[in-house]
């Protein structure tokens, strides 16, 4: 975001963006220092990368749900496309590009590209719909992506790349490697995802989303969200703008998927099912639609919470649900919100 643009923005908006960036940077610095000085438990250290991935997922879904106002229930599908294409490309590049961070960055770019293509193709039919219909169709596409990946085989040998569907008919030569093995997913992934890379991805996605939202297109998104007919009457191309938001969101989700997958040694398509899509939607709703900082905090809090509740053993998911309900009720209660705005030190006097 250029300085000039930042100044031109409404001051409240500029302040909000500034707070979001600085919150992310401060949190990163604190955790990075704690992690390298050994103050962080293994449990927390292990969650840093997935938290970054979920933050990006939440921010990208917020672009679709919060800014352009379409309920998408298949966001995990894009994450899985990014995860599978990213990891597969990282494995293919393993011998040529030995520098792990570079390989990870390239894998995330590949993941983003594939997810963007999928987002575009899915967007063509989906974005002609609206409201509940759109939600149901995105749900269906999420499931379709999962099924396809569960039946997809992809291998490499001396003769090049081989694909097959349903059953493994790749017939690899000796020394070849079957990378994607249908329901068995990908095994033996080199764990190259790191917290700094996760942080960079979070910052990039925030920049992309903020720049987009505060551009001419971003205002078009919101105009369409608020009144579709009025927006159409002044000549806004509804499908084009919706597609722009949808594809951007899919690309970011793809990069997040690649980051997430490369934090584990194995990945299966079933991981990215309907439940994961809903989980990400919960981040967005809890954090506030259109509120990026909220999404980021919600993603971090709801990833850490189940781990912190381990002490309650079998009751922990019950407690998790109760805490979620109480938080949702609390954040939507006008009196409680007012109480928190009063506590806000950044609040300017004239607003009060």
């Amino acid at each position, binding site marked *: 975001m250029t300085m000039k643009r930042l100044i031109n923005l409404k001051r409240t908006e500029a302040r909000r963006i500034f707070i979001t960036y600085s919150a992310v940077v401060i949190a990163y610095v604190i955790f990075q220092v704690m992690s390298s000085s050994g103050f962080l*438990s*293994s*449990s927390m*250290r*292990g*969650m840093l990368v*997935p938290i970054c991935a979920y933050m990006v997922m939440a921010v990208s879904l917020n672009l679709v749900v919060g800014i352009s106002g379409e309920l998408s229930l298949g966001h995990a599908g894009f994450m899985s496309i990014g995860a599978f294409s990213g990891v597969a490309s990282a494995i293919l590049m393993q011998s040529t590009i030995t520098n792990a961070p570079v390989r990870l960055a390239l894998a995330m770019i590949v993941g983003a590209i594939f997810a963007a293509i999928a987002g575009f193709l899915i967007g063509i039919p989906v974005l002609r719909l609206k409201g509940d219909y759109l939600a149901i169709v995105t749900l269906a596409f999420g*499931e379709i992506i999962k*099924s396809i990946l*569960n*039946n997809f085989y992809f291998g490499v040998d001396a003769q090049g790349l081989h694909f097959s569907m349903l059953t493994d008919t790749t017939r690899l030569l000796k020394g070849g490697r079957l990378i994607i093995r*249908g*329901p*068995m*997913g990908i*095994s*033996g992934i080199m*764990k190259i995802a790191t917290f700094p890379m996760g942080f960079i991805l979070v910052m990039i996605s925030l920049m992309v989303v903020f720049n987009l939202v505060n551009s001419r297109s971003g205002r078009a998104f919101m105009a369409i969200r608020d009144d579709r007919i009025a927006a159409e009457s002044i000549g806004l191309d509804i499908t084009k703008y919706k597609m722009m938001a949808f594809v951007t969101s899919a690309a970011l989700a793809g990069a997040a998927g690649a980051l997430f997958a490369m934090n*584990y*040694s*194995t*990945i*299966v*398509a*079933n*991981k990215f*099912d309907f439940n994961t899509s809903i989980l990400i939607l919960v981040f967005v709703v809890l954090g506030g639609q259109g509120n990026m900082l909220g999404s980021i905090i919600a993603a971090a809090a709801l990833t850490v919470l*189940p*781990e912190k509740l*381990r002490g309650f*053993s*079998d009751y*922990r*998911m019950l407690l998790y649900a109760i805490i979620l309900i109480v938080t949702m009720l609390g954040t939507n209660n006008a009196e409680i919100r007012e109480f928190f705005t009063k506590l806000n030190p950044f609040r300017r006097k004239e607003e009060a």
Partner: protein
Amino acid sequence: MTKRIFTCALLILAMSSCAFGAPFKLGGTAPLTGGAAIYGTAARNGAAIAVEEINAKGGDIQFELRYEDDTHDAEKAVNAYNALKDWGMQLSLGSVTSKPCEATAAENFSDRIFALTPSASSAAVTEGKDNVFQMCFVDPNQGTASAQYIGEKGFAKKVAVIWKNDDVYSKGVYDTFIEAAPKYGLNIVSDTTFADGNDTDFSVQLTDAKDKGAELVFLPMYYQPASLILAQAQAMGYAPKWFGIDGMDGILTMEGFDKSLAEGVMLLTPFNADAKDELTVKFVAKYKEKHGEIPNQFAADGYDCVYAYYQALTQAKANADMSAEELCTKMIEQFTTMTFNGVTGENVKWSANGEVTKDPKGMVIKNGAYVGLD
């Protein structure tokens, strides 16, 4: 009053003097909630019984067991593993199910914490890791062993297979079964699949098997879909022989399942709760008393894992002050050389890549209980 305090103090003194050194911290992740919870809780209960028995012996080797829930998900399994690491885990029981265990095994490998998984059976769990060992058969072996067993016992010539094509376990067994079938004179007449989400109606698969005249249906899957298959086959009047693998174990303890449906179902599992040897009888009695049900193979695997550790630690003269890394080196040494006798098999040996060698046992369900086939 003073007398009482005195005796109390004496008692405490006595207890602490015969305290047997610090316990080894043994940790594992398992699905304790969710769809696969029956396996996780069984393995945990089995391991807990073994730990209790060993600690009661009062020898030098004592265990402290802790299980964390992984909900059968690789991401949660790594979180659970890290929580155990924070607790100070010295020896690991890996994870109970395959995919989560693949993820935690990679952590075990990089952290140099030795792992012996009770039941994670996919080949990728141990592949390329010198410190991860399995107590159960590796999936590919189950497929070959099933084909061999069916062929050699002459149960059927025409065989149908119904398998789950989005599941690591099912796919692993299916692949090798299909490969081995022709060798043992089996003719696969029907080969149908299902997946998550369409695992409630099996009429298409069963009709196909019936129309093609399959005499035996092979079910390489977990018991939940299998229970529905059995019920739906009965409803359509189709009564072939049924053959399952270790995932079928547990069908009798499933809530709301009509046990008569499973009558005559055969399965290949390393553990036979009906066996008359002393070890098994003792274990089954204790499990029944504590948990009110017959232990399945997962419980037996968990039980054996702890005893295998006990034997290896005794032989290695290890003590609990050793770091996880030291123990890891010692355990690799022991497990690749020792022979273990447990409830899931005699003369159990491990190869250097962590796979186990033992004989599978054929079982059949009769009058609502597992009975040995031989």
